[in-house]
């Protein structure tokens, strides 16, 4: 890696950096996925060891459970918890969040009524219980039915859960933060003679980078304006949520499949509804006038389904990429922190600390990188969609090396 020291080199540099960034991403993806696999194997070790131990959970199992729990969304905002070693009672410090359930009628109550999954809540004649941060309809005793097909998951009915969970709270917080931050930046232009002030000085170059090197580079000078609000919003939204994921608040919003699905769905909808005639022609008639119809039919039997599948695969890749990267990052980081408690030695402790510190630094980069990749690819798809035939030729080179 290198830095751009000279202003003159910045243009060349930014292009090269993009390539470098993509390379770093691939390496990171590799490292992260490798680490995730290592974690899996590690988990299996635990299971092998576990039967030998008697009764209570081992430290390793406890850590694994904690990590899995952390990756899930939560119905209460826990800041930290402590377990009394003698009685085994766990105290949670934090605040409850509202639970909103639709189950033949609206049921609302505070999540504190669950007592972290220990109690059954009765609401308007129906009983609900919390199991692994999921709400199930149950009876007065709170029985959960299991069967072989579903593995660990209970077969009880899951009502539609519209609760304001921890992730929703974090999204609202980030949303307000973004509005405050960029509203003040927008205002500072008016009051400060078109020059940003304070935090805006840091964020303005990023906004300009997204405009010049993501939007204009991929969509083109004529049509980028329409997509700018979405690209900017999605970039800062993902980036800020990723960064909050690294704080001790312990939120994992972007590592949640529902969140990434929603974002990818919006990208898909925008791509589909802003698609030009040439875009659809490219999908249903990619060869154009280059071949007689008899020949085209034979090829199109294979080609058109692939193109149509591609429509859905693109946003699907977006959602899986973000989800997998953020989840893997959290798993690796928390596993390394967990190692401190497993080793409990003067060598292992600092070593794990050093490792988790290094991974934290990489995660800081990944947080930015994933936001960048998501925005970049979204812009690329918008670029395909808004392309007209005349621009198509000039654009081909740009697409091919990605």
């Amino acid at each position, binding site marked *: 890696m290198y830095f751009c020291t000279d202003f003159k080199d910045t243009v060349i540099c930014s292009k090269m950096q993009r390539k470098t960034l993509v390379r770093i991403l691939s390496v990171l993806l590799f490292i992260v996925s490798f680490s995730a696999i290592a974690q899996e194997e590690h988990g299996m070790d635990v299971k092998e060891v576990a039967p030998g131990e008697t009764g209570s959970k081992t430290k390793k199992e406890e850590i694994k459970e904690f990590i899995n729990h952390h990756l899930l969304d939560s119905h209460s905002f826990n800041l930290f918890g402590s377990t009394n070693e003698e009685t085994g009672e766990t105290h949670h410090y934090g605040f409850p969040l509202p639970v909103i359930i639709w189950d033949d009628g609206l049921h609302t109550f505070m999540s504190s009524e669950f007592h972290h999954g220990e109690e059954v809540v009765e609401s308007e004649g129906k009983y609900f219980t919390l199991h692994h941060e999921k709400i199930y309809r149950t009876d007065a005793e709170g029985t959960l039915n299991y069967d072989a097909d579903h593995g660990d998951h209970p077969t009880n009915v899951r009502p539609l859960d519209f609760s304001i969970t921890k992730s929703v709270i974090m999204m609202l917080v980030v949303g307000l933060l973004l509005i405050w931050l960029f509203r003040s930046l927008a205002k500072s232009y008016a009051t400060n003679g078109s020059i940003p002030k304070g935090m805006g000085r840091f964020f303005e170059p990023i906004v300009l980078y997204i405009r010049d090197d993501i939007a204009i580079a991929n969509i083109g000078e004529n049509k980028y304006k329409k997509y700018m609000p979405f690209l*900017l919003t999605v970039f800062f939204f993902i980036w800020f949520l990723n960064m909050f994921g690294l704080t001790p608040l312990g939120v994992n919003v972007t590592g949640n499949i529902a969140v990434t699905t929603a974002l990818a769905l919006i990208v898909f909808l925008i791509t589909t509804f802003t698609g030009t005639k040439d875009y659809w022609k490219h999908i249903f008639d990619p060869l154009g006038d280059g071949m007689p119809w008899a020949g085209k039919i034979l090829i199109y039997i294979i080609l058109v389904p692939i193109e149509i599948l591609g429509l859905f695969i693109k946003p699907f890749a977006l959602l899986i990429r973000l989800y997998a990267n953020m989840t893997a990052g959290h798993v690796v980081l928390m596993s390394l922190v967990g190692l401190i408690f497993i080793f409990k030695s003067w060598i292992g402790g600092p070593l794990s600390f050093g490792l988790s510190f290094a991974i934290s630094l990489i995660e800081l980069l990944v947080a930015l990188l994933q936001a960048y990749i998501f925005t970049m690819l979204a812009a690329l798809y918008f670029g395909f969609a808004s392309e007209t035939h005349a621009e198509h030729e000039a654009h081909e080179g740009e697409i091919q090396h990605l």
Partner: protein
Amino acid sequence: MEKLVNDFSFGLFFWQIIIFVLLLILLRKFAWKPILNAVNDREEGIKNALDSAEKAKLEMQNLQADNEKLLQEARAEREVMMKEAREIKAKMISDAKEDAKTEADKMVAHAQAAIESEKKSAIAELKQQVASLSLEIAEKVVKHELSDKDKQLKLVDEMLGDAKLN
């Protein structure tokens, strides 16, 4: 995959869509549009300022070239004027000299003429005086002659000697 499907929370999906779309609309109206417009305006302003600076520079260059030309012209003109002045001066001097000479010649001629006439009148007067003197002498001589012949002769000689002295 089963884990992914199981983890998918419809509630969170629902809230994410609502919050994101709301955020998109709000930010678009209150942040992105003003920011991008301000940045565009600023860039436009910078571009215009650079353009006008370039224009001003060109104008300046033109002006400088004009000045240079003017200066050159002025210098040439001065040169011409100086030359003319010098010529006029030389001419004036030579004219003056010529005039002075003719005047002087004239004066000399006048003077000569005057001298000539003076001389003539002087000669004429001298002649008259000589005549009257001669008459006087003759008268005296005659008177003396009438008394003494020797004395007369002597007197004539004396007179003549006197006349010579005059």
